[in-house]
C-alpha cells in the first residue's frame, strides 16, 4: 500500500474523503476516511490533524438523533487519529474532551449507566484514553484547572459509573484504565510527563473533590461480587491506593497552608466545589478512609486469587510509604494485612509482603514514628487480650492470620517492644494469652502406656540424628502451622525483648502453678532460642545481643529450676507410684503441689502427708509432657550456647541421662534426642563420646546420689544409660562407681533391690556385650577360615560308593556300640570321677592364684553374682525374675574363667533348684533358661546335680502335662503352661548334649518326650520334642534309633547274609498311630545323618574284630 509521506500528498488523498464526509455523514464515508488514514504517515497526519478531525467532530456535533453505528465509527476514527498524533492545542483538547464525554451522556443523569450500546461505550472510553495520551504534557495540565473542574467531575463520575455498573468486563477494565489516565496515574508503557511538586499539589487539590466519590465507588467494587473476576478488583485496588496515596500524601499535606486562598469572585461557584485540604479535612477524610480501608483489607486479604492479595500488599506498601502520617489510623489495619500475608499460601505474595515489611522496618517508619509505635503497641495489647478468645472461637485459618498479625507487629516493633513489655499490664496480658493458647492436650493414654523395651535401635546408639521434638497436641488448635508461629512469636520476643525481664516473668509463671508450668517452659525454651538469634528471621537486627555470659547465667538459672527435684522427679507411671507408696521414700510429686501451689520448701513438711493415692492418667500425661518440654529445653539451651555449654554439662548431663533411662518411652526418646542435640551443639561426634568424655561428671553424680535413698533409683538409671550407650572403654571409668552400687545394694537389700537389679542387669548385659560377644566374634572370624580347609577331606569320601567292606565295618561298629549300650563296657570309672571334680574347684575357691589372674570385668561379674545368689530367694516375684536374668548374663560373662564360674555355679545351685522345682511358673521358665545357659557353659559339672535334683521333677511335670496339652484347644498356646512345656522341651535337647548325660537319664528324657511326638500335641510342642530327639541322636544315635524303631518301624531289615537271623523290632508291623509321622520323620533324619557320618568313621577307625555275634 502506498504511504503518503508529505502533508501535500496526504492532503490530496484525504481531502475528497473529508469533503464527502462533511456532506453526507454515513458510516461508509467514515470508513472510507478511516481507510485513507491508514495510508497516511503519522508525521503527515500530525499536520493535517485538525483538518481531518473537523468532519468527524462535525458529525458528532450535528444536532438530532444519530445512529449509534455512526457514532461508534466516528469515535473509532477519532481514536485512531489521536493514537498517532499529538494534541498541541489547549482548545482542541478541551473541546475534544467535552465532545467525547457528551457522547455517553444520558438524559437520565449519572445515576444509571448511559443507554448506548456497549460497543459505543467501549470506543468512547478508548478514544478518551487516547486523548489523554496524545495531549502534550503542558497542554494536558491545562485541563486540570479549577475552571475545568465540572468537566473533569463529569468525566470521572461517568467513568466510575461505567466501571461499576457495566456488565462487560472489557468496558469496566478500560473505564478503570481511563480513569487512571485521567487522574494522571497511568501505568502504561508510554511516556508521561512527571509532575513537579507545585503541579502535583495543584492536581491534588483538584482531585480532592472527587475523593469521596472515587474512594467509595472503588471500595464498593473491591468488596463486591467475587464473580466479577480478579482483574477488575486488582485494577480497582490499584486505582484506589494511587488516588488515595496521591491526595493524602504526607508530603503535600505537610506543605498545605493553613489559610484558604481567596478565590477569585467570578469563579466562586467553582471555588465552592474546591476542597481545602486543611487539618480538619484531613482528619475527617482519614477517618472515613480508614473505614473503607478496613473493608478493603477485610475482603481482599482472604480473596481467593493471589493477585488480589499481592495488590493488597502493594496497597499497604504504597499507603504506608506515602501517607503514613495522614492515615495513621489505618496503619494498624495495613500492617495487619501485611503481616497477615507474610505467611500466605502463594510464594509471590509471601516474598513480596516480607520484602515490603522489611523495607518498612528498614526505613524506620515505625521506630521513629512515635504515633505508629503507639498504635502498634495498642494493637498488640488488644490482640493479646483477644487472643485467647480468638483461639477458641476462630477456625484454623483465622487463628493463623491472627497469630501472623501478632508476630508481624512484634517484628515491626523490634526493640521498641521493650516499652510495651515494661508495662506490667501489657506483659501480663501477653503472657497469659500465650499460656492459654499453648495449653497442651493431655488426654492421650498412649503416652503414658508406652514403655521402653530393652535396647534402643542401633541407629540411635551410634549415629547422630537430629533430635526431633516430640509432636505436641494442643487443646485449642490442631493445625500444624500454628505451633511454629507461636514458637516464632516467642523467639522474636526473646530476640528483641529484655531477656532478664521476660525470663523472670515466665519463671514466675512456671513456679506459680502447675497449670502454667508446661506452657511457661515451652515459652522459656523459645525465648532462649530467640535470644541466641537462632531459628528466626527478623526484619532488622537488634541493637545489642545479650552477651554469652548473660545468656549462660540465664540458662543456668533456668536449668537449675528445671532439674530441681520437684520439677524433675515427677510421677509418670503407675509402677513408680506403687514403688513410691511401698517405700514412702520418694518425695511427693508436683501433683500435690498442684493443689498446694506451694514451692519446694513446703515439701519437706508434707512429705509424710497423704500421697495422692492414684494419680490420674491425665496428670501422669501432663507430667510426661512437662519432662519432655524441659528436656527439649535442655536441647534448645545447648544450641543457644554451643560449645560453651560444656561447662554446664557438669550439672545438666546427669539429669538428661537419668531421663534417657526412664521407662516411659516418650521420655526416654526425648532425652535421647536431647543427648543428640548436646552432641551436635558441643561438638561431640557421638553419644558415646559425649558420655565417655564426661564420665567423671556422671560418676560423681551417681556416687553422690547413691548416698541418698531417694536418689538411688535415679542414679541406677543414669548408670544404666551410660552402660547402654558406651563400649568397653567406659568400664575402667565406672568400675569405681559399680563398687559403690554394690556396696549400697548390700546395705538395702529389702528396699532397693528392684531398682538396683535393673542396673545390674544392664551392667551384666554390657559386660557380656563388650567382653564376651566381642571376643566370640573375633574367634568366629578366626575360625571361619579353618573349617573350610578341614571340611575338604571329609567331603571326598561321601562321593565314594558304598562297598561291602564298608557295610561290614559299619556293622562291627554298630555291634560295639550296642555292647556299650547294654552296659558291657565299664563306664563306671568315669562316673566316679565326676563328683570328685565337682568338689575340687570348691577347694580351690579361695586359692589366691585364681583371683589374681581374674580380669576386672569378670571380678565385677562375680561380685554381682554373689549378690544374685542372695536375692534368688527374694519374696517378690519381679525381683526373682530379674535376678535370674542377671544370673544368666553373669554366667555368660564369667564363662571364660572356669575356676570362678564353677564354684559360683555350685553356690547358686540350691537356690536355682528351688526356683526350678518350687516356684511360680514364670520363675520356673526363667530359671530353666538360666539352667540351659549354665549347662552350656559349665558342661558336665552339673550333670549329677541335674539328674538328681531337677530331671525327675521336670520329667514328671512334662509327663503330667502331656495329656492336658494333647487335649487342649488353640487357646492353649497362649497359656503359661504351654510356654513352660515348650521351653523345657526346647531346652532339654541341648541340656542332654552339653551335660553329657548318662544312659539312664537319656532314657528317661527320651521316654518323657516320646509322648510329645504325638500328632495330637500342638505343632510347636511336636517340633520341640523332635528337636530333643535330634539332640539325643547326637549323644547316642543307636539307642535313639532303637527306641524310635520300638515305636514304629517302617522297614524290614533283611539280613545281609543268610546265616544271620532276621532282625525283629517291636515296632515292626504296627498300625499307623499318633506317633508314626514324627517317628518316621526322625528316623529319616537319623538315616541321613548316619550316612553322612558313616564315611569318615569307617575311614578313620578300621575295626580289627572278627565275625559279628549271632
Amino acid at each position, binding site marked *: 500500500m502506498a504511504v503518503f509521506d508529505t502533508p501535500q500528498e496526504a492532503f490530496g488523498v484525504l481531502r475528497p474523503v473529508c469533503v464527502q464526509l462533511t456532506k453526507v455523514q454515513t458510516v461508509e464515508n467514515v470508513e472510507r476516511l478511516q481507510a485513507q488514514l491508514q495510508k497516511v504517515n503519522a508525521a503527515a497526519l500530525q499536520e493535517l490533524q485538525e483538518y481531518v478531525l473537523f468532519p468527524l467532530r462535525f458529525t458528532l456535533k450535528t444536532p438530532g438523533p444519530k445512529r449509534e453505528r455512526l457514532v461508534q465509527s466516528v469515535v473509532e476514527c477519532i481514536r485512531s487519529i489521536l493514537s498517532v498524533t499529538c494534541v498541541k492545542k489547549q482548545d482542541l483538547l478541551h473541546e475534544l474532551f467535552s465532545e467525547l464525554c457528551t457522547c455517553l451522556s444520558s438524559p437520565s443523569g449519572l445515576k444509571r449507566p448511559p443507554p448506548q450500546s456497549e460497543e459505543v461505550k467501549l470506543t468512547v472510553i478508548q478514544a478518551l484514553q487516547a486523548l489523554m495520551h496524545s495531549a502534550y504534557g503542558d497542554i494536558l495540565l491545562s485541563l486540570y484547572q479549577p475552571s475545568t473542574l465540572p468537566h473533569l467531575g463529569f468525566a470521572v463520575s461517568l467513568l466510575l459509573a461505567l466501571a461499576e455498573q457495566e456488565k462487560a468486563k472489557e468496558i469496566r477494565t478500560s473505564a478503570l484504565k481511563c480513569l487512571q489516565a485521567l487522574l494522571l496515574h497511568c501505568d502504561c508503557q508510554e511516556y508521561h510527563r512527571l509532575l513537579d511538586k507545585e503541579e502535583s499539589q495543584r492536581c491534588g487539590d483538584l482531585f480532592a473533590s472527587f475523593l469521596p466519590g472515587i474512594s467509595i465507588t472503588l471500595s464498593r467494587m473491591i468488596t463486591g461480587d467475587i464473580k466479577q473476576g480478579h482483574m477488575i478488583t486488582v485494577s480497582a485496588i490499584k486505582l484506589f491506593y494511587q488516588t488515595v496515596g496521591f491526595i493524602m500524601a504526607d508530603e503535600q499535606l505537610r506543605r498545605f497552608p493553613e489559610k484558604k486562598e481567596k478565590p477569585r469572585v467570578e469563579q466562586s461557584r467553582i471555588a465552592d466545589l474546591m476542597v481545602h485540604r486543611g487539618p480538619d479535612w484531613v482528619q475527617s477524610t482519614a477517618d472515613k478512609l480508614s473505614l473503607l480501608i478496613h473493608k478493603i483489607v477485610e475482603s481482599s486479604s482472604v480473596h481467593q486469587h493471589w493477585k488480589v492479595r499481592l495488590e493488597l500488599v502493594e496497597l499497604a506498601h504504597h499507603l504506608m510509604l506515602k501517607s503514613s502520617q495522614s492515615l495513621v489510623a489505618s496503619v494498624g489495619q495495613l500492617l495487619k494485612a501485611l503481616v497477615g500475608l507474610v505467611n500466605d499460601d502463594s510464594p509471590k505474595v509471601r516474598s513480596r509482603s516480607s520484602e515490603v515489611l522489611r523495607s518498612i522496618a528498614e526505613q524506620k517508619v515505625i521506630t521513629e514514628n512515635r504515633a505508629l509505635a503507639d498504635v502498634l503497641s495498642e494493637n498488640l495489647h488488644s490482640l493479646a487480650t483477644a487472643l485467647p478468645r480468638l483461639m477458641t472461637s476462630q477456625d484454623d485459618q483465622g487463628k493463623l492470620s491472627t497469630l501472623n498479625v501478632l508476630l508481624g507487629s512484634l517484628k515491626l516493633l523490634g526493640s521498641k517492644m521493650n516499652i510495651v513489655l515494661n508495662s506490667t499490664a501489657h506483659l501480663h496480658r501477653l503472657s497469659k494469652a500465650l499460656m492459654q493458647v499453648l495449653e497442651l492436650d493431655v488426654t492421650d493414654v498412649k503416652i503414658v502406656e508406652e514403655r521402653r523395651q530393652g535396647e534402643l535401635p542401633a541407629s540411635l546408639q551410634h549415629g547422630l540424628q537430629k533430635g526431633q521434638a516430640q509432636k505436641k497436641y494442643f487443646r485449642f488448635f490442631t493445625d500444624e502451622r500454628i505451633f511454629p508461629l507461636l514458637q516464632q512469636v516467642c523467639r522474636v520476643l526473646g530476640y528483641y525483648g529484655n531477656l532478664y525481664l521476660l525470663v523472670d516473668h515466665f519463671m514466675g509463671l512456671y513456679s506459680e502453678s502447675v497449670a502454667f508450668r508446661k506452657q511457661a517452659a515451652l515459652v522459656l525454651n523459645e525465648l532462649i532460642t530467640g535470644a541466641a538469634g537462632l531459628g528466626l528471621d527478623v526484619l532488622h537486627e537488634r541493637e545489642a545481643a545479650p552477651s554469652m555470659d548473660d545468656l549462660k547465667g540465664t540458662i543456668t538459672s533456668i536449668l537449675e529450676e528445671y532439674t530441681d527435684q520437684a520439677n524433675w522427679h515427677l510421677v509418670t507411671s503407675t509402677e513408680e507410684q506403687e514403688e513410691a507408696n511401698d517405700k514412702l521414700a520418694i518425695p511427693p510429686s508436683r501433683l500435690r503441689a498442684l493443689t498446694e501451689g506451694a514451692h519446694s520448701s513446703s515439701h519437706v513438711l508434707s512429705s509424710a502427708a497423704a500421697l495422692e493415692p492414684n494419680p490420674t492418667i491425665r496428670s501422669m500425661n501432663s507430667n510426661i509432657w512437662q519432662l519432655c518440654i524441659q528436656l527439649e529445653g535442655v536441647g534448645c539451651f545447648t544450641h543457644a550456647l554451643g560449645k560453651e555449654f560444656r561447662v554446664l554439662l557438669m550439672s545438666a548431663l546427669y539429669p538428661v541421662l537419668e531421663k534417657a533411662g526412664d521407662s516411659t518411652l516418650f521420655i526416654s526418646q526425648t532425652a535421647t534426642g536431647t543427648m543428640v542435640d548436646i552432641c551436635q551443639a558441643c561438638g561431640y561426634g557421638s553419644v558415646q563420646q559425649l558420655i565417655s568424655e564426661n564420665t567423671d561428671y556422671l560418676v560423681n553424680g551417681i556416687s553422690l546420689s547413691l548416698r*541418698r535413698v531417694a536418689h538411688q533409683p535415679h542414679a541406677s538409671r543414669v548408670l544404666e544409660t551410660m552402660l547402654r550407650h558406651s563400649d568397653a572403654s567406659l568400664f575402667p571409668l565406672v568400675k569405681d562407681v559399680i563398687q559403690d552400687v554394690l556396696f549400697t545394694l548390700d546395705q538395702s537389700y529389702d528396699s532397693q533391690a528392684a531398682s538396683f537389679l535393673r542396673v545390674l542387669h544392664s551392667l551384666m548385659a554390657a559386660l557380656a556385650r563388650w567382653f564376651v560377644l566381642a571376643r566370640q566374634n573375633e574367634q568366629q572370624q578366626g575360625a571361619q577360615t579353618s573349617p573350610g580347609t578341614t571340611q575338604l577331606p571329609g567331603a571326598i569320601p561321601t562321593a565314594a560308593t558304598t562297598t561291602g567292606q564298608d557295610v561290614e565295618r559299619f556293622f562291627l561298629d554298630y555291634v560295639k556300640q550296642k555292647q556299650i549300650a547294654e552296659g558291657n563296657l565299664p563306664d563306671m570309672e568315669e562316673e566316679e570321677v565326676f563328683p570328685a571334680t565337682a568338689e575340687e574347684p570348691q577347694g580351690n575357691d579361695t586359692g589366691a592364684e585364681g583371683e589374681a589372674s581374674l580380669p576386672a570385668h569378670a571380678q565385677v561379674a562375680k561380685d554381682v553374682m554373689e549378690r544374685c545368689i542372695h536375692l534368688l530367694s527374694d519374696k517378690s516375684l519381679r525381683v526373682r525374675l530379674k535376678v535370674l536374668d542377671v544370673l544368666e548374663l553373669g554366667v555368660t560373662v564369667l564363662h571364660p574363667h572356669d575356676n570362678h564360674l564353677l564354684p559360683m555355679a555350685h553356690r547358686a545351685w540350691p537356690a536355682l533348684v528351688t526356683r526350678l522345682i518350687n516356684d511360680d511358673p514364670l520363675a520356673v521358665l526363667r530359671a530353666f533358661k538360666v539352667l540351659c545357659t549354665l549347662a552350656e557353659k559349665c558342661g558336665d559339672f552339673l550333670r549329677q546335680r541335674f539328674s538328681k535334683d531337677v530331671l525327675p521333677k521336670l520329667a514328671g511335670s512334662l509327663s503330667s502335662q502331656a495329656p492336658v496339652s494333647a487335649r487342649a484347644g488353640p487357646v492353649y498356646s497362649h497359656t503359661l503352661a504351654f510356654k513352660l512345656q515348650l521351653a523345657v522341651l526346647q531346652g532339654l535337647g541341648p541340656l542332654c548334649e552339653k551335660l553329657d548325660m548318662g544312659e539312664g537319664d537319656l532314657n528317661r528324657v527320651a521316654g518323657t518326650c516320646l509322648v510329645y511326638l504325638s500328632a495330637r500335641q500342638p505343632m510347636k510342642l511336636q517340633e520341640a520334642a523332635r528337636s530333643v530327639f535330634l539332640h539325643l541322636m547326637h549323644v547316642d544315635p543307636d539307642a535313639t534309633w532303637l527306641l524310635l524303631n520300638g515305636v514304629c518301624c517302617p522297614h524290614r531289615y533283611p539280613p545281609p547274609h543268610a546265616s544271620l537271623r532276621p532282625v525283629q523290632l517291636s515296632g515292626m508291623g504296627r498300625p499307623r498311630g499318633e506317633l508314626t509321622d514324627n517317628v518316621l520323620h526322625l528316623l529319616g533324619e537319623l538315616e541321613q545323618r548316619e550316612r553322612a557320618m558313616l564315611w569318615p568313621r569307617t575311614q578313620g577307625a578300621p575295626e580289627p574284630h572278627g565275625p559279628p555275634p549271632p
Partner: protein
Amino acid sequence: MRTSPGRDVMQPVTAHVTGSWLPGRDRGARRSSSAVLACQEQPVECRAADPLPDQHHRSAGVTRPPGHRYFWMIATMALPPPDPEFVLRGTAAPVHTLHFSCRSQEPEFPILFSGSANGLVQIWNLKTHRVDKTLDGHGGKSVYWVETIRGRDELLSQGRDQKICLWDLAEGRSMVTDSVSMDSVGFCRCSLLKMAQDRWLIAMPADDPDEVQVLELPSKTSVCTLKPEAGAKLGMPMCLKLWQPGFGACPFLMAGYEDGSVILWNLSMGKMLSRLACHQEPVMSLDFDSEKAKGVSGSSEKVLSVWSLDEQQNLKVHKTHELINSGISDVTIRQDRKILATAGWDYRIRIFGWKKMKPLAVLDFHTATVHCVSFSDHSRPSERLLAAGSKDHRISIWSLYNQT
C-alpha cells in the same frame, strides 16, 4: 624395712614401731564401730551415721538435689552431714597431699594441687572439676607434700624419691627449675614459712634420722640443724610446722616425733624450748594456731591431743579428745581458726570446733583411709572448701560451715 617402697606411706611406720596397729579391719566392723562412735562420741550425730535414716532425714535429703549446697549452722545440729560438693576422680593412685590455690581473681579459676602415690602432681581446675595439667617429676615415687610459692607460679613438691622439686608454672610452663635432695627416708612432710618477699624457710627431715634441717629458699643455704640431745630417744621427726609469733619475729618449729612427743624448737638458737609427750604412739600430724598459742596433734592411737604454749614457752596438754577409731593421718585448722578437720584411718573426716573441740560432723564418704585434709584459701569465706584425699583414689570436696 621402713622404706619398703610398695607400702602405705603412713601406716607401716606405726605398725613397725608400736605393733599395736591392727590390719585387716573389714567393712562390717567399721560400720558397727561407727554406730558406737556416733552414740558415744557425738550424740547429736546419731542420725548422721545411721544407715537407715528416719523420716526427717529422708525428707530433708530428698528435697535437695545432689549438687545443692548445704548451709547449715552449728546451731542446727539435727541435720544429717552433707554430701561432698563434688568428688574428683582420676588420680589412679592413693592421694597423699592436697593444696588449694583459690585466691586469684577472675578470669583465673580456683585450682587444687594433688600429689599421689604414683608420683604425679595433678592440677585440678575447680571450675570444670577436671585435671588441667599433670606434673611428673618424682620418677613414679609417691608425692606427699606440695606447696605453692609466689602465688601459683611456683610449686614445691616433695616426693619419696628423696627430692624436693621446685616447679615453674608461670605462663603455662611446667618444668622443674630446681631441686633439693634429702637423705631422709621417712614420711615426714616439709613445712614452709614465708619470711619476707622472695625469702622462705623450709623445714625438712635431715640426713640423720632424728634431725631436722632448716633451709632458706631460694638460696638453699642451711639455716640450722635441729639435733635433739643425746639419749633423748625421740625417733624420727614425723611432722613439722614452722611458725612465727608475728611477722618479722623469730621463727619457731613445732615437730612431732616418733615417740609421741611434740617439741618446740627455737630456730635462731637452734635449741629445744619445750618437749611434751602427749601421745603414746608416733605423732602423725599436727597443726598450730599461733594466735591462740594452741596446737593440736593426732597420732595412730585413738586420741586427739590439744596442747597450748604458755608465756614461758612451755608446752602443756590443754585437752585430749577421745576418738572411737584409732589413727589420724592428718589434722588441719582452717585459716580463720574456727574449725579443724582430721583425716582418719577409719575412712572418715571429722570436723571439730577449734575453740572447745566440739565435735561437729563426721563426714563419711571414702572407702579407704583418708590421707590428707586441706582447707581452701578462697578470699570470700562463703566459697571456702574442704578437700580430702584418700587411699581410694578419690578427692572429696566439701562445702561446710561457710556461714560462720
